[in-house]
């Protein structure tokens, strides 16, 4: 299969402008004849649904929560990047583009990333106009902070709740359109299948989570804005409901899945404390502006952190990466933390932890300034651990946080299934093998506000509005398949709750397809997962019926899809015989333990094709060419 990314011709910095100038349009009078389904109401989905409705399209919006305002984006803490250069510190579109490509370890598309950097500036304008209360300086101008992988301050923030404020901005824009009758909002609906009619995406099947009703919905285009799949690991910083079902079901209907093994492990999360644990809590990367990471120099140190003298501490990030120090990118910081713990120098009851210390910042700035910057994060830390980070350092450890992989899309954000568009974390597009902090919010809003509204017209202008009929054979087949699957899940009637399978899946992926990977480990992982999937379908217990609110049934469907995805993640990791960004194959490392990329063989995007139940997936590749930036070894030293 040849993958055509449809990147416009011309110099990199002019591609998007030229694209917009030449794109085919739908006239204002005709827009209302087209129906668009938008699944997901996070930053990507809410911004797309609102913007499309403003343009005049008929929009149907879906989410599984009780309200669109509760999408997982709400939990983003630290900030959003934009190349505004308000600090006069040398930022520019070009520099944001370069940082993102380099941060992603040269495994993303130049043209997409450049466009992202270009529209970043419009996002901040839009959000401020909506009333997003970003942090300000005393003179009333917008404030910025620094995030990992950058040497400029380009991150805009609203205390430790940037995602909440951005999402509420998008939610309010969406609510306005719902109130105007331009968007039909369907909360508490879970998408369980994609309808592909004559090769094009024309609808979805949903389950109403309160009544259990299965229903088909038709449209002229379908947008999946359904977020990332990090919950495959069971323990993660994601909301508990985040899942892969929408994209996985689309994958099974023909959409290619790209770079599934690229998962981001965030260095600063609260460590695991027990078996029962249900989630890991992020301590925002912004803390690394002022917090310093260290472990004791000696193995098996027993003293409390504050009792360990300065000279006996190893500030390992500052030592290993002096030019970026504590603001080294996430993949690098996480691996460094793992390494010092592997050496037996980890702290806390499990030995899987490092300190994040604010004493120097408190000394330099005073406690009140530190409080002003991070109070809610310190409070959260206290809530969970019962400890005060003003008095002794935080203990942190890496945790699964974001997935760079996702459905393959071209420059138009369209998958290989015509009419199926994928936005936000659900697509693979902009972050390569490692995402920089504060860039997911930027990408979600870029896709929804400023990219998709242009590209979708190009597709729809070539389509005749199909109307809302859902009686064709493709719809009936998808409906039948969903009914059968629901019945099957309820009918296994085994002994084990879904959570037992999910935990085992998570542990297997963490051990074999986590921060460090080997051929042997991945092969073992695949063997375990194959067995686990079989056991699931023989022994899972899903109580209750399909005819009302049944949270066990919801979880079972999601875990069944995670089990299939888990195997693909391991296969992808196995076939990528190099190390890049988050993907660290122990067989491929430099003498000082950094990633050894193999550009000649692996400078590509993997794109997996589903070949049918029980058959191995087939991997296609989209070669990456770097015309503007020379492929270089990433260095943060």
């Amino acid at each position: 299969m040849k993958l055509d990314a449809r990147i416009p011709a011309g110099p990199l910095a002019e591609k998007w402008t030229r694209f917009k100038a030449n794109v085919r349009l739908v006239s204002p009078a005709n827009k209302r004849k087209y129906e668009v389904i938008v699944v997901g109401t996070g930053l990507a989905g809410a911004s797309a649904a609102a913007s499309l409705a403003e343009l005049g399209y008929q929009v149907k919006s879906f989410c599984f929560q009780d309200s669109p305002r509760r999408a997982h984006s709400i939990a983003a803490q630290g900030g959003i990047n934009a190349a505004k250069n308000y600090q006069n510190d040398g930022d520019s579109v070009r520099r944001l583009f370069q940082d993102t490509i380099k941060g992603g370890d040269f495994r993303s598309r130049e043209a997409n990333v450049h466009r992202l950097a270009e529209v970043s500036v419009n996002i901040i304008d839009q959000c401020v106009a909506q009333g997003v209360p970003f942090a300000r300086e005393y003179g009333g101008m917008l404030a910025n902070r620094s995030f990992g992988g950058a040497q400029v301050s380009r991150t805009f923030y609203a205390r430790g709740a940037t995602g909440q404020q951005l999402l509420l901005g998008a939610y309010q824009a969406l609510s306005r359109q719902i109130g105007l009758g331009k968007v039909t909002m369907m909360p508490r609906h879970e998408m369980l299948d994609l309808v592909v009619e004559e090769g094009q995406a024309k609808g979805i099947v949903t389950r109403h989570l309160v009544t259990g009703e299965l229903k088909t919905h038709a449209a002229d285009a379908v947008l999946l804005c359904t977020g990332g799949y990090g919950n495959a690991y069971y323990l993660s910083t994601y909301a508990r409901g985040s899942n892969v079902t929408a994209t996985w079901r689309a994958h099974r209907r023909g959409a290619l899945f790209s770079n599934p093994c690229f998962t981001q492990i965030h260095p600063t999360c609260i460590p695991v404390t027990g078996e029962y644990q249900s989630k890991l809590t992020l301590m925002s990367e912004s803390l690394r502006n002022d917090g310093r990471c260290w472990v004791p120099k000696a193995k098996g140190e027993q003293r409390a952190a504050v009792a360990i003298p300065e000279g006996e501490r190893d500030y390992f990030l500052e030592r290993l990466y002096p030019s970026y120090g504590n603001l080294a990118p996430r993949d690098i910081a996480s691996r460094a933390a793992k390494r010092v713990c592997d050496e037996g120098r980890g702290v806390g009851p499990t030995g899987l932890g490092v300190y994040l210390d604010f004493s120097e910042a408190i000394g330099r700035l005073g406690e009140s300034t530190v409080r002003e910057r991070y109070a809610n994060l310190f409070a959260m830390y206290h809530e969970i651990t019962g400890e005060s980070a003003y008095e002794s350092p935080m203990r942190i450890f890496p945790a699964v946080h974001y997935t760079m992989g996702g459905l393959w899309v071209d420059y138009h954000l369209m998958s290989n299934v015509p009419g199926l568009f994928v936005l936000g974390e659900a697509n693979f597009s902009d972050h390569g093998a490692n995402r920089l902090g504060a860039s997911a919010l930027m990408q979600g809003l870029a896709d929804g506000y400023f990219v998709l509204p242009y590209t979708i017209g190009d597709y729809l202008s070539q389509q005749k509005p199909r109307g809302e009929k859902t009686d064709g054979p493709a719809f009936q087949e998808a409906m039948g398949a969903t009914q059968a699957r629901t019945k099957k899940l309820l009918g296994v009637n085994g002994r084990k709750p879904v959570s037992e399978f999910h935990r085992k899946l998570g542990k297997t992926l963490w051990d074999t397809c986590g921060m460090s990977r080997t051929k042997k480990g991945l092969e073992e992982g695949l063997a375990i997962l194959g067995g686990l999937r079989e056991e699931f379908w023989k022994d899972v217990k899903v109580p209750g019926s399909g005819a009302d609110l049944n949270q066990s049934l919801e979880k079972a469907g999601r875990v069944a899809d995670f089990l299939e995805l888990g195997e693909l993640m391991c296969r992808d990791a196995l076939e990528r015989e190099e190390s890049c960004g988050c993907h660290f194959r122990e067989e491929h490392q430099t003498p000082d333990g950094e990633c050894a990329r193999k550009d000649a063989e692996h400078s590509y995007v993997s794109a997996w094709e589903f070949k049918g139940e029980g058959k191995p997936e087939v991997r296609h590749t989209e070669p990456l060419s770097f015309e503007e930036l020379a492929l270089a070894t990433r260095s943060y030293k």
Partner: protein
Amino acid sequence: MKLHLRVWRQASRQSEGSFVTYEADGLTPNMSFLEMLDVVNDRLTKEGQEPIAFEHDCREGICGSCAMAINGEPHGPNAGATTCQVYLRSFRDGQTLTVEPWRAKAFPVIKDLVADRSAFDRIIQSGGFVSVGTGQAPDANAIPIGKGIAEKAFDAAHCIGCGACVAACRNSSAMLFVAAKVSHLGLLPQGQTERKQRVQKMVAAMDAEGFGNCSNQYACEAVCPKQISVEMIARMNRDYASAVVDQI
């Protein structure tokens, strides 16, 4: 650690509910309250019973999904925290906990601990926004906003829409929720053009949903996980009064 639970079980919106007692054993103080419910639910599942339905998503106090009263207190005993941020160290070994959904006419119970809070969304749809389309915005630094104003607007905007304010109020009033949005947008220059229509539309929508009146008891402020101040209500009342005066 061990707890005795009295949990509200209700099969559907139409059916009658009642309290059912469960023993939760083998707990540790570092477990969260919701993790304790997970453990109980896994046990119920193994025994072939339907687990307790409850809403939750982020489990870090920001999405506003989790919504239950523990011993009569919305979100449990800790100030400034949601149910998902309650840890078992807040309780005594052997304590009895009564767990209920929000109780309010405008929030009908759907199942067990799950209530329908869609009324809040409809209130926002009536006017809780700035009418600015994508692409219409001027440069973000074109209008300076004083740090103090921005901070105050944030305090109001931090509302997570959980509904604890309504659940705590003996009149089931939604004033704190509505006032938080009215104040957030009313404090900022961007929200001025629609300020008067906004407050009127939102108050009308609130009334239409069947929420009660505010009688200044301030129970809402006490349970608000984001500690939103009742000053916001005073601010909204002023805005409302001035909007009405304008019409005379």
